[in-house]
């Protein structure tokens, strides 16, 4: 059997695999649901980011000393940098999607390494942020405990919750990035082995 005939035969068999009408209808429905969910998630992310920026700003108005004010600015910088990093990362990945497979692999590798660097940076500043939140929480309660409403006391927990949430998110980001880098590392030798030989 010649090469062309063999490929033609496989092609014929391959292209007869058409999804059914029900499957396509289901795909379109799932796609519409996914776009809606995506929009909602992005809106929620914007709200969370907005709150995460506004909260330290408001808190800084009541900063008891320079240390608290400085740490509040640090918190603002972290939130802004996380948000900017995610936006940049998404845009870079979306742009890279239309590149050739080799360029895409390079882009993904660079993005994942940037994510790992970012996670390391984040863990350093999260420590500082944790100190800020703990001081703010302890100091706030000590000074204002008699005048605080239940809502205000509840809000005192928000910075600490944000620190924990960011920590969990960054751990997942690191894990995903390492997994993808590992998969890419395994793709490289396989491709090189193929390209190195003759026809």
């Amino acid at each position: 059997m010649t090469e062309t005939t063999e490929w033609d035969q496989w092609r014929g068999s391959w292209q007869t695999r058409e999804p059914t009408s029900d499957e396509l209808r289901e795909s379109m429905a799932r796609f519409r649901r996914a776009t809606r969910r995506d929009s909602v998630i992005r809106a929620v992310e914007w709200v969370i980011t907005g709150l995460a920026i506004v909260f330290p700003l408001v808190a800084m108005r009541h900063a008891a000393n320079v240390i608290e004010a400085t740490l509040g600015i640090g918190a603002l910088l972290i939130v802004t940098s996380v948000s900017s990093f995610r936006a940049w990362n998404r845009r870079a990945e979306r742009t890279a999607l239309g590149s050739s497979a080799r360029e895409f692999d390079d882009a993904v590798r660079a993005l994942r390494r940037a994510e790992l660097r970012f996670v390391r940076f984040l863990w350093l500043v999260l420590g500082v942020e944790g100190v800020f939140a703990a001081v703010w929480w302890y100091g706030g309660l000590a000074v204002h405990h008699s005048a605080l409403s239940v809502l205000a006391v509840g809000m005192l927990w928000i910075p600490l919750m944000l620190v924990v949430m960011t920590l969990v998110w960054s751990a997942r980001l690191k894990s995903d990035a390492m997994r993808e880098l590992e998969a890419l590392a395994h793709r490289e030798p396989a491709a090189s082995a193929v390209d190195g030989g003759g026809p």
Partner: protein
Amino acid sequence: MDHILESSSVSESNQAVAGFHVVMRDYGARLSRLAASYVDERADRDDLLQEILLAVWRALPTFRGDASLRTFIYRVAMNRATTFRARRYRRVEYPMTEGLRDPAPPPDARVAALDERERLTRVIRSLPPSLRDVALPYLEDLSIAEIAQLLGITENNVRVRLARARDQLRTLLQEAPA
């Protein structure tokens, strides 16, 4: 498939979504086949197809016409499928001929024909990524030049990989039960 697309509730006034309808009409079946060739489980296939459709939808505005639309969509789909697989599975991708040796013979000719396609899909899925990346678009009628553009390699490299893919496909299909 047209009636399915026409019956969808997405607003026609939205140009991006309307453009996406055209993509679905012309490429829906190909993208579905591509998803099936990357992941095994039905649920994973559905998830991957959804991811691919979303990726194509988001990437379409960045299409500048430096390649054909077909090549562009295939690039986006394959790139998304690669990252999906990398995120979903920790294991390294190697040929898994053991996975091809399973079920009992089909009861009739129609089922046998379906099984033949499924067998080919499973064999394609078990190819090493570097060979699957050239075999898939070749089976979808992309030219060698288009595949070279798709993968960012030379046409000679594509020919080399196609020759190796053919050898492996032949071997794997012989090993896999009909």
